[in-house]
């Protein structure tokens, strides 16, 4: 491509930083460059994901047959708690916004950085502090926490383990999330390139924007809830203690007022990535741009009103229950709008099934199963039966891992050449996608059936009749391990040894593809002027001639 010559005489952000230190660790950890911060998040998150995944594999090993195989019940309790806490608070909630939002939001907007670059670095450090606190809670006397990632009252007040420290870590992580959210919202309002009106923004920007709003609206509620639990542990004020007049159910309300919207913090950015990848590989402008953009906001809004569907069996009035059930069904509408628009975009497109696109296909399949089983859990009658069973475990792995997790890989494979200026091995990548599909379903589909048969979640042992399906699931976890190693190895190999990539290998047209790969320190030589719709592929010819 012609702009490779431009790449040669331009320094990338790897070669030129904005810190005093010109190279080494200090040039990264003190850098306010949004791209470096994004990559630092990526490294941290990759480590946490790997640790939590390995914990998951060990849990599956314990579940390979009835009785005690590897560990006792208490160890299993701490492991599933740890697995959940790391996956939720350290991987999937910060995940896409912190890594790809940081890296690509300014690029897609045509900006030189986010609005508050120093605050951005600060958020990263808070994130790391939170992570260190989680680690400390494992090793300090008192022992690792064993409440499950939901920290339900009353056990979280009574448990002798290091709950206060661990949930304080969640508080700190929430603070990081809030500051990132504030930064992104301001950036979108203030730093759009000339000509980029709201409805010319790429859909990933829209999704990140909606997510940022959820981050700042919902997170303070969990923050105060956590503070209350800590106060309760330290001083016994009684706010959640029935013997002093308090109400433990109130804790669940407060917890889910945050944690349900948090589910949308996890999925919305992923949906944004999908809306980027599909047009690029279908060579066709997105179908229903406005509907997709606005459905992000609609999901963000309705997502606030459904929290109590996690509590159908906790004790609520029937009126409250059916209202929350109804509202839950409503969330399916904007989600459906998106899926139909994506499919319509592919219709009559000239589809180029490269690995990122295949990851998206994986996503649509797995996420649809996750979403539809969500409706099963959202309806009262069935939920009373399935609540707290493996059906729920299967459901949330399908939406979180099959949904957001898959798209995390899709985004990595899509933006890899942009970030690193190199290319991974396409064939290996394709094999990875296929293996992932098989491993995933082998690992989690049996859990739907197990849950339906009555296997409760968070148990380290089970009845003999569950044994064969549990075994299948464990075999699936081995295949998953191999797959993850393959996927990550391919990326690492690409970074270290991959061949040089063209600047725009997929033929994308959003602004990040208008600059060299990897981008220079301040992203653009001249801030581009936006004249086209975001997914107008007629500009591709002009871009080549630039």
């Amino acid at each position, binding site marked *: 491509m012609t702009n490779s010559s431009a790449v040669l005489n331009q320094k990338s952000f790897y070669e030129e930083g904005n810190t005093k230190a010109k190279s080494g660790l200090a040039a990264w950890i003190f850098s306010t460059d949004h791209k470096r911060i994004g990559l630092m998040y990526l490294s941290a998150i990759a480590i946490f994901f790997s640790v939590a995944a390995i914990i998951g594999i060990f849990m599956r090993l314990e579940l390979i047959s009835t009785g005690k195989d590897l560990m006792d019940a208490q160890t299993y309790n701490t492991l599933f708690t740890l697995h959940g806490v790391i996956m939720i608070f350290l991987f999937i909630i910060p995940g896409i916004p912190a890594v790809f939002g940081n890296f690509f939001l300014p690029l897609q907007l045509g900006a*030189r*950085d986010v*609005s*508050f670059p120093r*605050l951005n670095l600060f958020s990263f450090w808070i994130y790391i502090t939170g992570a260190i606190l989680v680690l400390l809670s494992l090793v300090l006397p008192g022992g690792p926490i064993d409440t499950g990632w939901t920290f339900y009252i009353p056990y979280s007040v009574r448990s002798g383990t290091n709950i206060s420290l661990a949930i304080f870590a969640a508080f700190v992580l929430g603070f990081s999330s*809030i500051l990132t*959210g*504030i*930064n992104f*919202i*301001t950036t979108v*309002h*203030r*730093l759009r390139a000339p000509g980029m009106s709201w409805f010319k923004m790429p859909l990933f920007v829209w999704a990140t924007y909606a997510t940022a709003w959820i981050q*700042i*609206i919902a*997170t*303070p*509620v969990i*923050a*105060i*809830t956590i*503070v*209350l639990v800590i*106060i309760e542990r330290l*001083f*016994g*004020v*009684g*706010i959640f203690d029935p013997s*002093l*007049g*308090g*109400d433990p159910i*109130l804790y669940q309300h*407060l917890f889910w007022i945050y944690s349900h919207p948090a589910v949308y913090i996890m999925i919305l950015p992923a949906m944004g990535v999908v809306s980027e990848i599909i047009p690029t590989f279908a060579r066709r402008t997105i179908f229903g741009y406005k509907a997709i953009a606005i459905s992000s906001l609609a999901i963000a809004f309705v997502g606030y009103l459904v929290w109590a569907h996690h509590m159908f069996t906790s004790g609520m009035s029937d009126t409250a229950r059916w209202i929350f059930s109804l509202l839950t069904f409503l969330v399916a509408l904007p989600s459906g709008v998106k899926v139909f628009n994506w499919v319509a975009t592919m219709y009559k497109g000239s589809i180029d099934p490269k690995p990122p696109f295949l990851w998206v296909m994986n996503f649509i399949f797995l996420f649809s199963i996750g979403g539809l089983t969500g409706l099963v859990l959202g309806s009262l009658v069935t939920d009373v039966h399935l609540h707290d069973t493996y059906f729920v475990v299967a459901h949330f792995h399908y939406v979180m891992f099959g949904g957001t997790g898959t798209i995390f890989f899709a985004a990595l494979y899509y933006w890899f050449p942009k970030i690193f200026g190199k290319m991974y091995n396409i064939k290996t990548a394709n094999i990875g996608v296929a293996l992932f599909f098989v491993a995933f379903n082998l690992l989690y589909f049996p859990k739907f059936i197990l849950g339906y048969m009555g296997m409760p979640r968070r148990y380290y042992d089970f009845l003999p009749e569950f044994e064969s399906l549990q075994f299948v699931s464990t075999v699936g976890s081995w295949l998953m391990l191999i797959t993850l190693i393959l996927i990550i190895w391919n990326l690492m190999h690409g970074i270290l040894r991959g061949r040089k990539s063209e600047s725009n290998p997929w033929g994308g047209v959003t602004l990040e593809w208008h600059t060299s790969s990897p981008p220079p320190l301040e992203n653009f030589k001249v801030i581009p002027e936006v004249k086209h719709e975001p997914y107008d592929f007629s500009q591709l010819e002009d871009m080549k001639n630039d």
Partner: protein
Amino acid sequence: MTDSNHIIESAADNHIHRDDIGAKMGMWLFLFTEILLFGGLFLVYAVYRFQYPDQFHIAGMDLSTAIGTINTIILLTSSLTVALSITALQKQNKSLSIIMLSLTISLAILFMINKYFEWSGKFSAGIYPGSEDLLSRHNGEILFFGLYFVMTGLHALHVLVGIVLLSIILGMVVNKKITYDYTVKLENSGLYWHLVDLIWIFLFPLFYLIQ
């Protein structure tokens, strides 16, 4: 708003990126999260007040309306002084601005001193979380005092943060790091201080005036 627009134009040739409207927008968003943080507590308060209206009433009698009123006046005045300090600086009257800012900080410290005496009075009367005296009372009263300590405590923490913040800002005004054509940091700190005031305006009637 027009003011800050003007500021941006005059800084347009400045190489360093500067966006005062953006900075204020960020601050407003942050204040919004603060309101939601307290919002969670107000929600808890509402639930228990609804559940135990009479006992909240009885427990409220134990609080001193006088101290509450004095503290309200102190905070309101400090909000005024911080606003004056901003206007003074914008009108290029640096020394007045410094005086007003110092006054704000002094008032904040006065508030904390008052709070200290109020709380220690409660402690010596045997009212603190987990005390025998308190546990012998009705559940509603236990919750009232629990919320009283949690909510005014969290608010006091915000006052402390405000004192530190305003002191730093004061230092910056003195050292000319904040000048009349670049007041956004001072304005943002002022906004924070107004928020602390605002939250108190709600806490005051909820605890001191419900007898």
